[in-house]
């Protein structure tokens, strides 16, 4: 087992994992109460893979994610209120209410977006890596996607290009065992996903995505190797989503037992108990962390509730960057 980080660091990881968990539990409730529409993909069960990975990044490093990215916004520091406001479709949402759950964004914190098209985010991450390389910065881009996405054409195209051009991108495949209702064995001929980049010139690594320490240790190594060696790596994080693919999922493709077995490895209590055993956390601190998380989520809901819906007149805002040659939202100039 990797060594514990400093106690305050470890507690921050636990606190952030807890925040994500409480936030998504509440989002699920808000969805049931029709405060949130569209698709809502929760990452409950995957928090260690999110926090462990992103905490291995520097603040200047870029993060690119999918439609399952509330946690990625939160771990990067986007205020929970702005994430919840996005889910509520309000103007103060982190994407102005335009994107919703599948399209989170916080450029200031270098979270370059959640993307709704499976596999669509890989070329974009490689392009960001290309820019970092071109501009001569030390920035690394972490691109997160799922096991199912590894079958998309962009996976092979992008990894080949990243290896060929030695782009500073760490590709992280979050293997939660399913692409929607299709199990790994039924969608990928090679199930040892860390190997899926070998034929493309991208070496692989694996981490236990249920263990924030292991995830952090492996991603830290991967990110720093990529930063130093200027070449991409593929990291597989083994994890599991405890909830359905989205809110409308009868989960007939897996057994209650299977879910229960994985729940026994729930990364939150596992890490909390470890910290307690190691004397880095008291029972009271643990309770306070949970209480603070719940408070922040309450605040997030209140903030979202208070935020107005976008005005109808704003419908056409930002279809285009307006300028001399594009004068209005409309594509036909009328006098």
């Amino acid at each position, binding site marked *: 087992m990797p060594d514990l980080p400093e106690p305050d660091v470890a507690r921050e990881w636990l606190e952030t994992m807890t925040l994500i968990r409480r936030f998504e539990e509440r989002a699920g409730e808000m969805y049931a109460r029709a405060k949130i529409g569209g698709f809502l993909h929760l990452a409950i069960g995957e928090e260690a893979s999110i926090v462990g990975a992103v905490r291995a990044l520097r603040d200047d490093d870029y993060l690119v994610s999918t439609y399952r990215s509330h946690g990625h916004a939160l771990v990067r520091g986007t205020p929970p209120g702005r994430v919840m406001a996005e889910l509520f479709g309000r103007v103060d949402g982190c994407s102005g209410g335009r994107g919703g759950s599948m399209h989170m964004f916080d450029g200031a914190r270098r979270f370059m977006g959640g993307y709704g098209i499976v596999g669509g985010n890989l070329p974009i991450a490689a392009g960001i890596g290309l820019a970092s390389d071109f501009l001569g910065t030390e920035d690394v881009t972490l691109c997160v996607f799922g096991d199912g996405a590894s079958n998309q054409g962009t996976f092979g195209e992008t990894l080949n290009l990243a290896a060929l051009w030695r782009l500073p991108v760490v590709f992280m495949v979050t293997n939660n065992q399913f692409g929607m209702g299709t199990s790994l064995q039924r969608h990928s001929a090679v199930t040892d996903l860390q190997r899926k980049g070998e034929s493309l010139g991208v070496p692989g690594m694996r981490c236990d995505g249920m263990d924030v320490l292991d995830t952090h240790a492996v991603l830290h190594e991967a990110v720093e190797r990529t930063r130093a060696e200027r070449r991409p790596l593929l990291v597989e994080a083994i994890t599991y989503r405890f909830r359905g693919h989205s809110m409308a999922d009868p989960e007939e493709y897996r057994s209650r037992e299977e879910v229960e077995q994985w729940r026994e490895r729930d990364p939150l209590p596992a890490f909390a108990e470890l910290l307690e055993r190691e004397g880095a956390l008291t029972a009271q601190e643990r309770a306070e962390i949970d209480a603070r998380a719940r408070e922040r989520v309450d605040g997030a809901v209140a903030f979202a509730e208070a935020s107005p819906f976008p005005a109808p007149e704003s419908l056409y805002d930002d279809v285009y960057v307006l300028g001399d040659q594009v004068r209005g*939202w409309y594509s036909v100039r009328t006098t």
Partner: protein
Amino acid sequence: MPELRYREALNAALREELARDERVILMGEDIGVFGGAFKVTAGLLEEFGERRVRDTPISENTIVGMGVGAAMVGLRPVVELMTVNFALLAFDQIVNHAAHIHYMFGGQARVPLVVRMPQGAGHQLGPTHSHCLEAMFMHVPGLLVATPSTPADAKGLLKAAIRDDNPVIFIEHESLYGVRGEVPDGDRAQPFGRAAVRREGGDVTIVGISRMAQTAARAAQRLQTDHGVSAEVIDPRTLRPLDLDTILHSVARTNRCVIVEEGWPHGGVGANLAALISEQAFDDLDAPVRRVTGADVPMPYSKPLEDIAYPHEPQVVAAVLEVLDLAPPDRQPTGGSAAVTTASTAEAR
């Protein structure tokens, strides 16, 4: 006649065709064990087995291309793309291969392939998940394009699509899956190229595409009750082939036409129909053909914005009253041109 949901009608068509013809196979993401993202294929894996009903990886271009290859050597594949939005990944196989192979090989090869997928807004799925792309498919020679708006057509057109020897783009609508309607019993294929007159009327012709045929019918009802306007409502059912005659005959009587579509205005289905009607019924028209279209924007997630970004009855009613000179034309530039009502304007008004 039994009442079925649109989803159930599609399911019945697939079940009956699978039973009727050994060569019919289904392929798609999560159509088997999961039963389909919208449950259209529910129960078919259990009934016909993994050989006939195949879950695929997430590889849209290749799934469609495999359908093309299998069709060329005698199978009759029905490929489901989870939604039309993902078809953008398969445009090469759809256009450069499925649509062109019969012609490019001098008629020696056939591609009896059906690509099924739902489209449309209304469920707050946001910019990447709410497209209506029938105009893009309609543009391509070699494809047939169906846009069923009722459970009866969903079943009848799907059967006809599976039996046709041409590649068919079969566009369902996410908002219609739960809609109920009477579906004739038995093995009834609805031939392509026959528009349906959903309602007869003499004052104006309203053409509604895909889900908008339903919106148009509701608007016609309102026009009758609130304004005493008698509107004829036509649903083309298929865009390739297109039954223009039925529309022209109607316009010849009503002299006024409004086209309602959910998609983007520029180069939309409405623009194509407006052009054809203006060309061929020039002397019949007492007013310009009027289009009511989706707004010229990516579909926003936020509910109030999404609501005004695609047409509802009020915009259709407003547009009809305008072509009948019963209301002031709207002033603000919209949907790309002052003469197009897009969802937003009537609302914003």
